[in-house]
């Protein structure tokens, strides 16, 4: 596992997932009510991004934008350490707003973790199950692009992906897309009007079982539980990257 790739996934995938969490979880929504703070994270020789909490919403943009708090990390390992709880960050800007970091932000990430690493019994609640699966879907879709752009083997897979977009989605549910241009991948968390190729799960249960590694995509295609079409070589190579997602997110 490559530390730099993991840092990109941790920032652009996991922390960026707060955007969707703050849309779907009532407790998270309540936590950011009235909050007006932009938090920038900058990792040396790694990713950077800015989470903005404003007007009851969370937005995310890559790069260090205008911010109230800035968390610099001297290496990808240090940043990954913050995500797994072994490193305590220290802001280079916004010391007076450290309360947000210690309370609100920590609480938000705890809620996020409860969805991304759920207790099995919580998944029995269909509402929780749906939210958890959709958040996982956002994370996995983000991770595909990060692995395709940074992981050595993932880059090999991406090099075989022709230009265009691959729609990933759940029938009658959420959909997103991976855009490929000159072997660089970008995840857009929006359903495309048209696509070069697609991979659609027949329902949220199939999606979840695939994410959890309980079923195999090749079998699901044969059984019609996963639909693929269009420029299938793109789907094939995205699938090879998806195999590596488990290496980073296990």
């Amino acid at each position, binding site marked *: 596992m490559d530390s730099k790739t993991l840092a990109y996934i941790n920032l652009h995938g996991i922390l960026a997932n707060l955007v969707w969490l703050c849309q779907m979880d009532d407790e998270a929504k309540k936590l950011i009510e009235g909050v007006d703070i932009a938090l920038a994270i900058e990792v040396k020789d790694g990713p950077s991004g800015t989470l903005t909490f404003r007007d009851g919403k969370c937005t995310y943009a890559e790069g260090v934008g205008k911010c109230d708090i800035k968390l610099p990390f001297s290496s990808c390992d240090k940043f990954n350490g913050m995500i797994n709880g072994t490193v305590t960050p220290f802001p280079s800007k916004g010391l007076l707003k450290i309360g947000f970091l210690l309370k609100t932000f920590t609480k938000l990430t705890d809620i996020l973790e409860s969805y991304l690493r759920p207790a099995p019994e919580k998944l029995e609640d269909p509402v929780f199950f749906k939210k958890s699966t959709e958040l996982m879907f956002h994370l996995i879709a983000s991770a595909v692009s990060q692995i395709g752009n940074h992981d050595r083997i993932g880059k090999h897979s991406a090099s075989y992906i022709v230009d265009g977009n691959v729609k990933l989605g759940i029938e009658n549910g959420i959909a997103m897309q991976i855009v490929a241009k000159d072997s660089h991948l970008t995840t857009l968390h929006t359903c495309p009007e048209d696509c070069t190729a697609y991979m659609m799960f027949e329902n949220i249960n199939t999606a979840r079982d695939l994410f959890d590694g309980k079923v195999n995509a*090749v*079998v699901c295609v*044969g059984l019609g539980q996963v639909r693929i079409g269009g420029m299938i070589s793109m789907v094939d190579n995205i699938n090879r990257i998806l195999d590596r997602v488990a290496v980073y997110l296990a």
Partner: protein
Amino acid sequence: MRPVNTYTKSQEAFRRACKVIPSGIYGHQGPAEGCYVPVEAWPLYTSKAQGSWFWDLDGNKYIDYMCAYGPNILGYNDPDVDEAAAKQRAIGDCTTLPQTVMIDFADLLVDTVACADWAFFAKNGNDATTAAVMTARAHTRRKKLIMFKGYYHGVSPWTQKIDYAGVLEEDVVNNIVLPWNDVAALEQCFAENKGQIAAVVSQPYMHGNFHDNELPAPGFWQKVRQLCDENETVLIIDDVRAGFRMDLAGSDHYFGFEADLICFCKALANGYNVSALCGKAHLQNTVSSLSFTGSYWMSAVPFAAGIACIEKLKRIDAAKLLNEKGAKLRDGLVAAGKKYGFDLHVTGVPSLFYLRIADDPTLKLHQAWIAECVKRGVFFTTHHNHFINAALSDQDIAETIEIADEAFSIVANRR
């Protein structure tokens, strides 16, 4: 309008298979790797086959343009091949000592294949390509292999890519992949890897999936041959897919050059299980030194079938015949497409043609048309080159064009 097939029994069988066989049907004959889009349009199992047709489990009949992905070159259950195989089976098949029919088959290949001074037998195309690469490495004492983008040389780890499940970096670290038809890239590669290239491994032309197939540019193979000679590199032609459908003397012969090693399988014995590596005399001793064999590699029935197959291919001038049939089909399909405003590209040589409706680069339109053909009894694939067999009749071709026409009309109405 023709009735549309249903596949209840195929689907039932597949569900049963999924419980006890990984992915139900693994590999290229399965619905995922076979790119069955949508999966409901395709049969999954065969109940019987004869000549140029097969029937699925639900009793639907197909004019078959995949020919078991190549082996069926004379027609399923060809009486001459089957009779030779039956006679040999009565004598013995898998025996402790090999039978002399093996020598007869080797003699026949040496007489038939232009570059062959000897023949080494195995079971699958992958065995032959792997034997070829081992031979080249043993002969040159070098590691690196040059291949061309879009290559397919089997399923052994060395033939795969670093991101494939179960493949190690060490398996593929010596593979160099160059663009097809790019002489400058080849020259540069040889210059940068002086004294390190064991072999150039290639199919006779680029029949990769999802793209129009591409013939060699004029002079390309001659230049490759020259570079291999100058660099003492072994030139391996993987004729597993194209072998005997372009030229009975080998596809290298078709393009006017001589390979050092040439690999055959698919059409070698009309479906009986045998593959062959043939090559030039200076490599025979190296092959003798390989530790490479298998339990069934000297089974006699496939040798007898292979002899009958090659002799019949010669009698009927098969390469010419198959290309004429393929050309007739190609012309009919292109005309049918044009009638509805579709630009159907038919590429590769006619005996192993590749289809693509060029109006939609995403291939979705093409996949929709192919699905309508399959549902009406013409077995095409969406992504792979096709194969012509000698049993394909003019009536089959006419019926295929009729069904293709109907499928075009359906797809045109949806646009």
